[in-house]
């Protein structure tokens, strides 16, 4: 039988901020899907593990011109200026986080991480979280954990994996069925499926038939920069080359995605 290698994927996400209502369903779905631990007291958000976190942005203007926008922020799965040169992957001393050039997903190997937290310092999106405590599940909740995702122990870093276990399951199924390629809807993240507003789409940015490609229109000659005028990526100027695109029809929201000098216009909140 002729062996045909499947093409390298670049899984990514487009989040339409015009549709996002800030309901937080994506956060809840993510926590449930990925066995993300929580504590009795979650008042200090800088100690809370939120693989998907919704930020609230404002244009800073007084009423009645005040506008807000909710911005869900998963791990951006940066590719960097050359394949795998993500801010975090390049600095991890023990190769506990890796860039998969077959999928474009930045992985985290929990059993190899020894908790130096250099990756956290490197990530400008604060998408990486440290397990300051061992996870404790209340009551019988342990029985409801997702068996496909390993819980993490105290002292290691964790982050959004684009629900990679779902990709593995989908690939297993495809393999059994003698297929090399996954269909677009076969592999979707939990947040994508849970979003009641349909604000999140997920798929292969390299595949012109996938919605993410059609919406974001990534320019391969400029490290995936979106051609869609309403699309932007967070901190584009840093060269992180992320795989999460945002859509907004509002100029101030798009500008809030990056930093600008005064001479370039207000950095945010026009």
């Amino acid at each position: 039988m002729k062996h045909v290698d499947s093409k390298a994927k670049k899984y990514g996400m487009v989040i339409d901020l015009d549709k996002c209502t800030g309901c937080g369903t994506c956060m809840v779905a993510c926590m449930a899907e990925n066995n993300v631990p929580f504590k009795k007291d979650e008042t200090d958000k800088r100690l809370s593990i939120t693989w998907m976190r919704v930020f609230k942005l404002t244009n800073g203007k007084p009423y009645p011109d005040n506008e807000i926008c909710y911005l869900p922020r998963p791990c951006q799965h940066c590719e960097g200026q050359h394949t795998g040169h993500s801010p975090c992957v390049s600095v991890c001393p023990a190769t506990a986080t890796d860039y998969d050039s077959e999928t474009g997903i930045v992985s985290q190997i929990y059993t190899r991480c020894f908790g130096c937290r250099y990756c956290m310092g490197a990530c400008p999106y604060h998408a990486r979280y440290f397990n300051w405590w061992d996870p404790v599940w209340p009551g019988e909740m342990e029985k409801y954990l997702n068996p496909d995702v390993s819980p993490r122990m105290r002292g290691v870093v964790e982050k959004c994996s684009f629900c990679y276990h779902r990709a593995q399951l989908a690939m297993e199924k495809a393999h059994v069925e003698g297929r090399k390629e996954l269909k677009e809807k076969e592999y979707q993240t939990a947040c994508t499926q849970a979003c009641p507003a349909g604000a999140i789409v997920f798929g292969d940015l390299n595949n012109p038939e996938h919605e993410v490609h059609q919406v974001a229109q990534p320019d391969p000659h400029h490290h995936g920069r979106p051609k869609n005028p309403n699309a932007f990526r967070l901190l584009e100027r840093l060269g992180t080359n992320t795989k999460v695109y945002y859509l907004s029809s509002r100029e101030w929201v798009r500008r809030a995605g990056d930093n600008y000098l005064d001479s370039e216009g207000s950095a945010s909140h026009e």
Partner: protein
Amino acid sequence: MDSALWPIGVKRCHISKFLMGLSIAGVVLLWGVVGLILCWVKGLNQTHMNDYYGFALWIWADLAVIALGGGAFFTGLLRYIFGIRELKNIINYAVLIGFICYSSALLILAIDVGQPLRSWFIFWHANVHSMLTEVAFCLSCYFGVLTIEYIPLILENRQLNKVPFAHHLAHNMHHIMAVFAATGAFLSFFHQGSLGGVAGVLFGRPFAYREHILIWPYTFFLFTWSAAAYGPCFTLLITWLTEKISGKQLVKENVKQLLAKISGWMIFTYIIAKIADTVYWALVTAPSKGFTLMDFYSNNPIYGIWILIVEIGVCGVVPAWILVTPRLRANPKTRLIAIILGVIGVCLNRWVMVLQVMAVPVLSFDTWAMYYPSWQEVATTILPVAYGVILILISYRYLPIFPQEVELNPIEPSPSETVEAMNDAAAEDAMVSNGEPATA
């Protein structure tokens, strides 16, 4: 009571006073050990670090002690490779201080990781692209070098030195010390540099990121340079402190002035490079990422522009000016001011390159992150200081750290010391006549 262990020809304080000093440092050490055990048993939730402040007081302490311990490699380089003979009178102390600094850094690192039992993964699963990997390898190797440099000093203890093997080992180790000094300088260049690279490569953090020469960001070179420049200041500061506490002059003035002069010129050249780096960063690098200089120094309660002025001006230009000016360098008071400012300056630089990096928001809709350490972090950071005090107390009392001490503080030797000294001289003569070189 323990005078038989003292170096020949020196006087030490009464054993009770010595034990009292040890006890005080011991209590502080114990406090640190309690913090350490809590961190190891209960985890890093004992600290005030959080997901915005993954690097905090401990990493600063690591970077600071390694910079301060830079006096060991640089003085060793000057003494053994460049052959500046006067520095043999302070090299032992520089090595001891370096040994304390580097062992402290390793201890702090062992507390600072979330899974201490997996620390060896950094060697086993090494990512050669990570600056931290380079730090781990060079740091461990250089600590080995410092241990090798410290061993002959221990073997020169009056009683140990009577053991022929110990005597000959110490003697021969001294003769190959240039090899270790060169190795130490090589390793130090890379780990001091890679510690600078830890921040400089963070292209996601415009406050830290610097342009590169090949694979090394400018901070790589600045950190090595500053450690070589300011490290000797720390050696001189601790020497001054030891002299004050012991009530004796231990190193001759010309030696101190020479090291201060070298340090001064190093700081002078370093601070020019630092200013150039800062200007380029402020005018080119940061604006290319959408930031102005003042974005990094405003809208927060601590990190104002004052910190840059203090680091570069007060603690850089001023000590450089004092130490390169012969009249000011010769004055012990102004020299002391300069070396204190130098020590503060390099510590401040390391603070900025660790804690301010974490504090500055990068996302336009994020806010500054502030941090203060928990008592466990403070205790475990002071622990190495107490350990250093103890090691210095013991080493000063029982080892011939300062070769000029006997000459500077003459005392009437006891009859037994006179006999020992004569026997030692006879043994040296015998070795020379047997074709073996004498101790340098």
